[in-house]
């Protein structure tokens, strides 16, 4: 069918082949027949051939070369879609022989007029890099160019390529840092994640630790600091704030709105940015957004909870207000329940422990064995962390000992054992009660714990311990290994404290162990025997070891400290794969510690120069530039002011607008980047400004524009000049508005073409819509929610007609 000259048949054949590929069946023997069709005119056939090629080219390198010339031709195609897809496929064919061709293609595409093609070029860079590592230097050069790109479309992919090819070349970022920050909001979601992660690393290497000053004061006691943080207040924050590098501040500020992204990955990456780089007083801002993610899919919950658990061990206060969000729901999956318990216990404080314990009590009654066990352990952790409730917890746990469920009892026994260890004060009744349980409990872990307890505190229950040992000796052979070991330990300890009653028993037990199947047991038995009954070994008197036996076996043992498993994850970047699996993943980039001395911030200033060079001739010829080189951020945006002014000047003759537009097209490029900010800025500023400029005589306007240009955020200045313009002629406001808005509109949605011709082409695409992005007339709000649909209709029509 592939050889047929009917497209329909070919298509059908290709579809079946792709079906085979999709199901994972081998289809490589069809390669020659398929490759021929790469020249097909039918786009759909072509697409499917591409898909096939990418899958099998690696295996059939020679034949794959046949198709290369087609791609080379397609790379020159006037349609950007075709150029881009040709580059995509070409770079995806993993054939070493074509590396030079791909290199050339990438270089061309990186300078392409269409941002879509440039984006594809950025994607191609890591592909080529993984194919041939030797090309690194050359690729970095291309990448550098792409990083300079100001299109939101390209930037995300360029940074992704940067991360894969040369994450160590942090110097490439310097000049783009501010641009990346300002574009961040408009980049696509996936790009945002990559950029924020990269900038986190950048910030860690380029800025000083914002918490440096407090560290000195609070290092030795972190807890107190957190607790009175709420009172630590404005002044101290203000004192601290100025020490933050302005660029550092810029980064944090531009990332913050992304906490409201719908994409959980973006939110978490912002959270980790704050966690790793923000001053301590600001980190808590991310908590709320993280809690919101808990309503998402199970997998998202799991990953977010892991991050929260790790954060909560260090920053309790941050999540304390949200304590109730971590209460377990019966519908949660087990691993999510466990994570929630983990978080609840690490959040417990004197004030909140009451509520938590009440919850934990309910959990114990659930029917999900691992969860119940974890809940009991959680009670134990709360008890040992917070001294006030230890006794209550202990009582609660003891009451669990009479529970019907074996597993619950066993787990409680183990936990009580740990708790008693931390509390050396006498708890005789509990020990007695536990001793009674030996008869009923069957879980080996629990039996072992009871035996250990009896041995350790045998002086407190002098009557019971030997009796228990007697029982255990009887059943010794049928016990689990772990229990047998503890029986021996108990026997030895009793033998030392109460030799009269138990010496024989002890000998008996050791004798049994000597012939056990498990060599651990035999070893232990031999070892114990030589210490306790040295006479058996050699008929001399007590050796030195056996004299010390009491000290060896009955030494006071340090109590175990129940800790969160998440303590040791600090070393990894929050939210990364390595952090989740708690081992270093392939290709993980370590988060560097903050430098003590910040590297020269001037490195980031240079950014402006190349652009100024390019642009300067263009606009100085037209108008006096109001550019201020001393400002950092305005440079990218100041050309807008220029273009706006152009438009203003051409205000009188509407017909000229189009030509003006063309001539200033190069400047409009810049505008697009900030399109979103602008439009919002415009509407924010509008009401205030109108009043102001109305009051002024017309002649003042020029001055005021200049003044406003000096404003730090130039997006505002744009709106200023715009609004003044409109209000300057109150008589014909409605008409003027639309006319003024027009040029602005036309320029906004178009994406930076490189030449006038291209601009026109693109305008064709967009202008029919006349996106009323900036139209101030759109200020009308759809107020009450009750009848939104009808409101929208009426509101929209006038605009669409523009």
């Amino acid at each position: 069918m592939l050889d047929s000259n009917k497209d329909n048949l070919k298509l059908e054949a290709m579809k079946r082949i792709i079906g085979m590929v999709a199901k994972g069946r081998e289809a490589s023997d069809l390669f020659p027949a398929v490759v021929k069709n790469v020249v097909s005119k039918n786009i759909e056939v072509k697409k499917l051939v591409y898909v096939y090629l990418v899958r099998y080219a690696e295996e059939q390198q020679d034949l794959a070369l046949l198709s290369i010339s087609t791609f080379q031709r397609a790379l020159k195609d006037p349609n950007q879609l075709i150029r881009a897809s040709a580059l995509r496929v070409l770079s995806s064919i993993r054939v070493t022989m074509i590396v030079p061709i791909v290199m050339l293609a990438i270089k061309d595409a990186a300078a392409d007029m269409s941002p879509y093609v440039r984006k594809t070029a950025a994607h191609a860079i890591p592909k080529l890099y993984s194919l041939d590592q030797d090309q690194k230097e050359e690729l970095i050069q291309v990448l550098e160019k792409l990083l300079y790109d100001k299109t939101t479309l390209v930037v995300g992919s360029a940074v992704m390529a940067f991360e894969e090819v040369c994450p160590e070349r942090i110097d490439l970022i310097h000049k783009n840092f501010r641009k990346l920050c300002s574009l961040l909001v408009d980049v696509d979601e996936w790009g945002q994640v990559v950029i924020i992660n990269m900038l986190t690393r950048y910030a860690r290497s380029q800025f000083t630790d914002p918490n440096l000053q407090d560290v000195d004061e609070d290092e030795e006691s972190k807890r107190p600091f957190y607790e009175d943080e709420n009172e630590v207040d404005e002044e101290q924050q203000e004192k601290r704030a100025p020490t933050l590098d302005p660029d550092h501040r810029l980064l944090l500020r531009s990332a913050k709105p992304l906490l409201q992204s719908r994409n959980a990955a973006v939110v978490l990456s912002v959270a980790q940015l704050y966690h790793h780089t923000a001053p301590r007083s600001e980190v808590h801002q991310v908590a709320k957004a993280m809690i919101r993610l808990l309503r998402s899919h199970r997998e998202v919950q799991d990953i977010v909870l892991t991050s929260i658990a790790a954060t909560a061990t260090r920053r309790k206060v941050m999540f304390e207000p949200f304590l109730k969000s971590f209460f377990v729901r019966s519908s949660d999956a087990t691993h999510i329940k466990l994570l929630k318990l983990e978080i609840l216990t690490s959040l417990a404080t004197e004030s909140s422990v009451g509520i938590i314990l009440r919850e934990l009590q309910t959990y114990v009654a659930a029917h999900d064995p691992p969860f119940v066990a974890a809940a009991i352990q959680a009670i134990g952790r709360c008890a040992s962390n917070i001294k006030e409730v230890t006794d209550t917890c202990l009582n609660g746990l003891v009451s669990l000992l009479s529970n019907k469920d074996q597993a619950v009892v066993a787990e409680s026994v183990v936990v009580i054992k740990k708790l008693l260890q931390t509390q050396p004060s006498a708890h005789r009744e509990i020990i007695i009660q536990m001793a009674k349980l030996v008869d009923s409990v069957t879980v080996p872990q629990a039996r072992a714990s009871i035996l250990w307890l009896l041995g350790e505190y045998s002086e407190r229950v002098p009557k019971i311990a030997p009796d228990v040992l007697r029982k255990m000796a009887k059943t010794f052979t049928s016990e689990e290994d772990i229990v047998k070991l503890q029986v021996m330990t108990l026997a030895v300890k009793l033998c030392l404290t109460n030799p009269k009653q138990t010496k024989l028993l002890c000998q008996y037990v050791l004798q049994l162990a000597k012939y056990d199947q498990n060599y651990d047991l035999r070893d232990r038995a031999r070892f114990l025997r030589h210490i306790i009954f040295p006479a058996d070994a050699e008929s001399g008197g007590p050796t030195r070891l056996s004299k010390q036996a009491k000290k060896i076996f009955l030494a006071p043992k340090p109590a175990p400290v129940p800790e969160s498993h998440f303590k040791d994850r600090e070393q990894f970047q929050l939210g990364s794969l390595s952090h989740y699996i708690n081992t270093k993943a392939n290709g993980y980039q370590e988060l560097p510690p903050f430098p003590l001395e910040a590297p020269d911030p001037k490195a980031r200033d240079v950014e402006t120069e190349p652009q100024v060079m390019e642009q300067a001739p263009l606009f100085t010829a037209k108008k006096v530039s109001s550019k201020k080189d001393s400002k950092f951020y305005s440079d990218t945006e100041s050309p807008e002011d220029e273009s706006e002014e152009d438009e203003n000047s051409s205000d009188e003759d509407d017909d000229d607008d189009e030509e003006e537009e063309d001539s200033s097209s190069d400047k409009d490029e810049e505008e697009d980047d900030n399109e979103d900010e602008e439009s919002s800025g415009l509407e924010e500023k509008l009401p205030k400004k109108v009043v102001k400029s109305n009051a002024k005589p017309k002649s003042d306007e020029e001055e005021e524009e200049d003044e406003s240009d000096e404003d730090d955020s130039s997006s505002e200045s744009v709106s200023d000049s715009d609004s003044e313009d409109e209000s300057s002629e109150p008589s014909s406001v409605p008409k003027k508005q639309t006319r003024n808005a027009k040029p602005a509109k036309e320029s906004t949605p178009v994406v930076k073409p490189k030449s006038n011709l291209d601009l026109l082409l693109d305008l064709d695409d967009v202008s029919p819509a006349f996106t009323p992005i900036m139209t101030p007339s759109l200020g009308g709000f759809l107020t009450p929610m009750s009848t939104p649909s009808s409101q929208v209709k009426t509101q929209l029509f006038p605009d669409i007609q523009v």
Partner: protein
Amino acid sequence: MIHSLFIINPSGDVFMEKHWKSVISRSVCDYFFDHQRKASSPEDIPPVIATPHHYLISVYRSSMFFVAVCTTEVAPLFVVEFLHRVVDTFEDYFSECTESIIKEHYVVVYELLDEMLDNGFPLATESNILKELIKPPNILRTIANTVTGKSNVSSTLPSGQLSNIPWRRTGVKYTNNEAYFDMIEEVDAIIDKSGSTVCAEIQGYIDCCIKLSGMPDLSLSFVNPRLFDDVSFHPCVRFKRWESERVLSFIPPDGNFRLMSYHIGSQSIVAIPVYVRHSLCLRESGSGGRLDITLGPKQTLGRTIENVVLEIPMPKSVLNCGLVTNQGKYTFDPVSKLLVWEVGRIDVTKLPNIRGTVTNCHFSALYF
């Protein structure tokens, strides 16, 4: 980034695979199956599985596993979120996402996957753009295509990809311009035995169906925006405008989408519209248990409550239920042990009630 994707059905067959870089043998899924065997329910499989050379990141949606294979460090949430987006896109295209649907449309699925990722990095994930690249299948078009020989792959580049509004396609035209907004609120509450609320949260969504010509720029303001202190938006919403004025200003994508979702946390007081009075005893005499549940309205501000559905996950030991309702129907699924009672409208004068016996096998102890 994402290396390969395997789609696995509940019985453990890999019925679809897609590789964005070199081919990874499907034997890598064995590690996944190991974990699957260990887990008691599909929900319990950990989303990230580390194997010696690969990392498997999976999501479970509509009883299929989507397993992405990664070889290097990547933010796991990034992959998870992407996989969910893939499923969302399938659902958007085929109106549901099941094994048979995917098998039926494997070519479209394959093309979609190809378009969504390039070399493991997301390329186009907005449904508006994708729909321009690859037309969603429908019967009418299939017929038209076979007659005219046209394809369902578009030949032009979607202009949205090129503009600053990557979520909206251009050249939209409707004769009837309309926009619909749905507000959905979900209340999650934990209520203790005595009926008092332990914690309650509200999760709300505003879903839109917008069919407007051209490039409409909408703003939506709320009567009491202070309530929204924790919101998340579709990328089309302008953050700055929201921060300064609490007005949603946006150029909507064409068609259905979720404009915003908000969360009202456990700190604020949430009114719960219904109460449940229950008496449940699973072990009464021998193998039988008793169940008696009454529903009633609570804090409804005079509105009636409709479409009430009550779901009770029963313990594993329950074999069957013999119940009588005074209103609505009930079903019990003996496999998933889920009792579903579709109540309908709650009438204040005659409160809906369900009662009867529960049969269970008696070996393990039960706690409720």
